[in-house]
């Protein structure tokens, strides 16, 4: 049989289209990652930049390589602060993701079951907060949660709180959870909504017709069929929450331990770039498993 060309446009233009995302990834992911990886293997120094060795010319490449070592990684296992930070981050991310699911699922379900003409408006309302800067919205929560903030004023006004009392949420883990759940909710709701909205309503009628009451039909039909959305939403939230820095920094207290904050402290506070880089590389490794679950699920759906 004659060879059949797979594409009518096979040629330079096609290669350009394929190359663009790879060039992007190379420039803005692979290259920075290699730089970080290299710094993580270096030693800290009082210099500019604050680490050694530096590669000057290819003559000293053997000498350069011999100075690289894994002592920063070894240090991460010695000081319990880092392991605790990682575990605490994973715990915070897990609890936040569960909370997001518990709040996001009913929202997405209500949106998907709303009359067709309302749905674009409801989706719009979920996306609306993106029109304001993320940072400003987190700052707004400080205004609400701080002891003399809006929440205290409200609770005092409706008499649930005496004039001398104040809410003690700001600078606690609770404030961090509130901030995270608020900020990430659209990322949870949208994939869930996408999964639920395309579900065929007659499936539930069929389940009812076969003797299955509505609540049970939800667990046997709706929920299993929305699982791709659940996994997508959970991973899209879990992965960035683990490395979240801004929210714990602005809303969390001294006892809030998250790896993003630890990394920041190493980098800017202690000016230990090599150790901070090691923390970053390890964070990526920690997240490899959830990222793979997400990728796998996306491929199955696609």
């Amino acid at each position, binding site marked *: 049989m004659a060879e059949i060309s797979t594409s009518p446009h096979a040629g330079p233009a096609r290669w350009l289209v394929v190359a663009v995302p790879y060039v992007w990834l190379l420039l803005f992911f692979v290259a920075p990652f290699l730089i970080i990886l290299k710094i993580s293997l270096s030693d800290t120094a009082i210099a500019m930049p604050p680490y050694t060795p530096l590669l000057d010319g290819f003559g000293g490449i053997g000498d350069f390589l011999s100075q690289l070592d894994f002592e920063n990684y070894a240090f991460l296992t010695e000081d319990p602060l880092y392991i605790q930070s990682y575990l605490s981050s994973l715990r915070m991310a897990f609890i936040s993701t569960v909370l997001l699911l518990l709040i996001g699922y009913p929202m997405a379900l209500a949106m998907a079951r709303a009359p067709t003409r309302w749905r674009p408006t409801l989706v719009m309302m979920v996306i609306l907060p993106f029109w304001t800067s993320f940072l400003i919205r987190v700052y707004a929560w400080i205004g609400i949660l701080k002891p003399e903030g809006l929440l205290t004023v409200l609770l005092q006004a409706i008499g649930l709180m005496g004039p001398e009392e104040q809410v003690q949420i700001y600078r606690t883990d609770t404030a961090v959870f509130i901030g995270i759940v608020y900020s990430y909710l659209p990322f949870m709701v949208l994939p869930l909504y996408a999964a639920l909205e395309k579900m065929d309503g007659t499936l539930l*009628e069929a389940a009812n*017709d076969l003797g299955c009451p509505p609540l049970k039909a939800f667990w046997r039909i709706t929920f299993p*069929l929305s699982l791709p959305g659940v996994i997508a939403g959970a991973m899209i939230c879990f992965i960035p929450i683990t490395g979240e820095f801004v929210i714990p920094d602005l809303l969390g207290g001294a006892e809030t331990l998250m790896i993003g904050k630890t990394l920041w402290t190493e980098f800017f506070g202690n000016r230990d770039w090599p150790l901070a880089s090691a923390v970053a590389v390890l964070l990526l490794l920690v997240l490899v498993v959830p990222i793979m679950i997400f990728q796998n699920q996306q491929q199955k759906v696609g």
Partner: protein
Amino acid sequence: MAKTLGPVKRKFAPWTDPNAVPFIRFENITKRYGDFTAVSNLNLDIYEREFFSLLGPSGCGKTTLMRMLAGFEEPTEGRILLQGHDISGVPPHRRPTNMMFQSYALFPHMSVEKNIAFGLEQDNLSKGEIAARVQEMLKLVKLEDFAKRKPGQLSGGQRQRVALARSLAKRPKVLLLDEPLGALDRKLREETQFELMDIQHTLGLTFLIVTHDQEEAMTVSDRIAVMDKGVIVQVDTPAEIYEAPNSRYVADFIGDINIMEGGIVSKSAEPGQAPVVTLDCDGLPVTVEQECAATTGDRVAFAIRPEKVRITLDQPENTASNAAYGEVWDIGYLGDFSVFLVSLADGRIIRAAQANVSRLVDRPITFGDMVWLTWPKDAGLVLTR
């Protein structure tokens, strides 16, 4: 091997028995959606073990009527009785009816056997009982080899069978079929129609089918209700619907028919002889043997099926009545039948069908021939509605 036939089908006509108790009764049912009336003050009795069709064009209210029986919609007025009990307000999952959906509505995340077992699991049957019933159903629809497959891995015909098996698994008192064969191709549809009849007869269940396909309704049903704009126009056996439609609407909807408007010239009813109605269809004299409620001078319609019109090149003996002369304007060759469109002098078209009983490529009658159309007095009928 010869196909084993089920029990011999005996004449079944409980609706003719005045003492028979209807199995399902729609009583003064009205369903409105806002300003739109989908079903209007409808009364209908369906008997046990009946294969009953609701036939009509889309939007005539047939699906709404079925969904009210399944419990997905509540009637605005009136009530539905099942074995004498009012089932208004009973939610769908507590009704002894099962439905086969037009889209099949198979659960995509469950295998064929899980789909079939779904309804049985709701009844808290033992695992063994469920497995046995699932096997029985798979055998009934000839899908034993496909038990572990997901619906996505089946063909359209196989999915249709799974949907049927799932809706039959619980042995519902009434099986509701919503356009069940619509998505199948013609050959498969015909086969499946006969299988449906077999299954219905073997299991002894009551089937209510909604369809817009008149051939399908004619083939499978004991009785057909022809619906139009939310009301039932006629309920009868397929033969009665076809041979004795009660209105222009039913006559036109079922099969092919010539309808000519006309007026009653005279009526005679001599003792010992069949009553005869004489019509004048705008210059064409017609006599029909029929009881007729209309009186002399009334405008009525004369209707006759094409296969009951004889077409000849030679002039018949009697041309005073029930005879028309015209030119063959078009011929439709259908294989088993040829349909001749004959244009009369005044431009009216009468269709005549002739069975192609001999193997001829060139028919004796062809385009442009002048032909005579004749029909006996008992072939046509007078429609007053």
